[in-house]
């Protein structure tokens, strides 16, 4: 979750929200699942069509009609699979749902028919010359991993993790977490995030890694902000609370 890979958008409430663009890997997997599913559906329809067609000649009007319906359905499914699902599932296909990714508009709102049609017709070009090669080449240097269809439609594919509220009762009760209501305003936002991230999750680390990480954070911060330094972790706790100049706890 480095800052460079994120897409930040300011809401009308002046709150910055961060999107995490889905990468090449998860999008490829989603595409693979969709392709397999589409193949299976088409195969089933083809078998049905072949069963019905020979009987179409000797005046079997019902079967003839069924053949027409199926022929049209095959055309619609093979051409409209992505369009249909992205419209019905609001930016998702079965493959995207399995990979927990979703297409949204650049402004964060759900996709409309315009975007769905553009990005999926542009698939024809992204697919060129074979296997989405062009799309992948375009996606690779793009910080938001957009293929040509996304660029034209103004869409972005984002990760959509589950909202799992961490159980604050169990793990954190054991470890004293920083309880400052107002964090040290001297620190930059990035420093605050680093320090508090470490303090919140240090119990998940192996003792050796935890000790090394604490030192790597604390030493440069101590050089910058000074104060009373005894133990790296204690220093970080007190620094975050703005009490690093006090000599006793």
């Amino acid at each position: 979750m480095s800052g460079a890979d994120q897409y930040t958008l300011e809401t009308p409430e002046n709150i910055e929200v961060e999107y995490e663009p889905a990468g090449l890997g998860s999008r490829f997997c989603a595409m693979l699942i969709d392709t397999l599913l589409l193949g299976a559906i088409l195969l089933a329809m083809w078998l049905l069509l072949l069963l019905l067609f020979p009987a179409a000649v000797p005046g079997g009007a019902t079967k003839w009609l069924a053949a027409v319906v199926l022929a049209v359905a095959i055309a619609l499914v093979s051409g409209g699979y992505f369009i249909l699902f992205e419209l019905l599932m609001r930016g998702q296909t079965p493959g995207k749902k399995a990979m927990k990714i979703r297409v949204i508009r650049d402004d964060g709102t759900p996709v409309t028919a315009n975007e769905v049609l553009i990005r999926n017709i542009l698939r024809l070009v992204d697919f060129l010359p074979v296997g989405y090669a062009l799309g992948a080449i375009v996606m690779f240097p793009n910080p938001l991993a957009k293929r040509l269809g996304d660029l034209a439609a103004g869409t972005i594919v984002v990760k959509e993790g589950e909202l799992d509220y961490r159980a604050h009762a169990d793990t954190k009760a054991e470890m004293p977490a920083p309880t400052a209501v107002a964090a040290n305003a001297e620190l930059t936002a990035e420093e605050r995030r680093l320090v508090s991230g470490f303090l919140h999750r240090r119990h998940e680390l192996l003792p050796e890694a935890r000790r090394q990480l604490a030192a790597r954070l604390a030493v440069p911060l101590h050089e910058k902000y000074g104060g009373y330094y005894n133990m790296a972790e204690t220093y970080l706790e007190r620094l975050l609370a703005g009490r690093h100049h006090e000599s006793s706890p």
Partner: protein
Amino acid sequence: MSLDHWLKERQPVWQRLESIVDGLYRHGPCRTAPQDLVAMIELYQSACADLARLRALGGDPADVATLNRLVIRAHGQIYRGGPARSWRPLAFFLVDYPRLFRQTWKFTLASFLIAAASALMAYSTVQTSPQTVGDILGGADREVRGHKTLADIRERFGHEGSPVLSSFVITNNIRVALTAFALGITLGLGTIYILTVNGAMLGGIAGAFAKSHAAGQFWGVVLPHGTLELSAVVVAGGAGLLLGYGLWAPGARTRRRALREDAVRAMRLAVGLLPAFAFAGIIEGFVTPSDAIPEPLKLALGIAAAAVFWLYLLLAGRTPPLPAKDIKTASAISAAGSAATTAG
């Protein structure tokens, strides 16, 4: 109050918001209780404030990320820009589409000129040096193989007219047309390539048939459906050129913006052709191969189809001219309006 304590206190609020937003993503606003929709706005605003607070206080990044995701999802539902407008096919095809065509007719003209120039060149080249026909068709090798398989299918399904054949032809033509539009994103170069290849192929084959004094036979097979089909392909090429031109010369817009705006217009121009392709495909599947319909009737049908198509593009959706009386009133009103503006 400790941060953890505060988090625990706020959690029910977030979970309530989450369940409403989840319901919206699943079932849409119509099947969400009105009081939930009202409550959602307030819940969303407080979640925004909570997110800002949690960030400023240096909360656990995992909690920040969770709350961030919740705010994103709620934001997406709240600022979705008006009710999802239902698509009105009648208004689109009777008014919007022909108007769009007339706004962008220059691109269709350019598309036609490219294809026609390429066809004429191929035609005359084959006339003067017949051995080049292989080269021209060699360049379109895959297309010819496509035609060969189509011919095979035609053999297999007989000459009675076939829904399956129609369906294949329609699908194939629509793919070519949509590709011509989509390739506009290569600065229009891909679209020009497709138009050139298809034009050369048509001209080349026509030239070869003419050379062997069988031109009538060729046009008898191509024209019944070809008039409408080729017209539609030319318009699809125009859509591709429209998309590409915005990238060359975006005007006062940024290129990114030009791409996004022109993509919408070009997509509509291309997608609106689908009924024309369906109709051309039905003719190709049922009329062209039929032995029961006499040749002149087939030709007449083809020409009539194309004529209706072009008249529709040029004339449909025009506002009827105002009677002279109304024009006078309108200009009086606008004059009064501008006078008022100047005075103001």
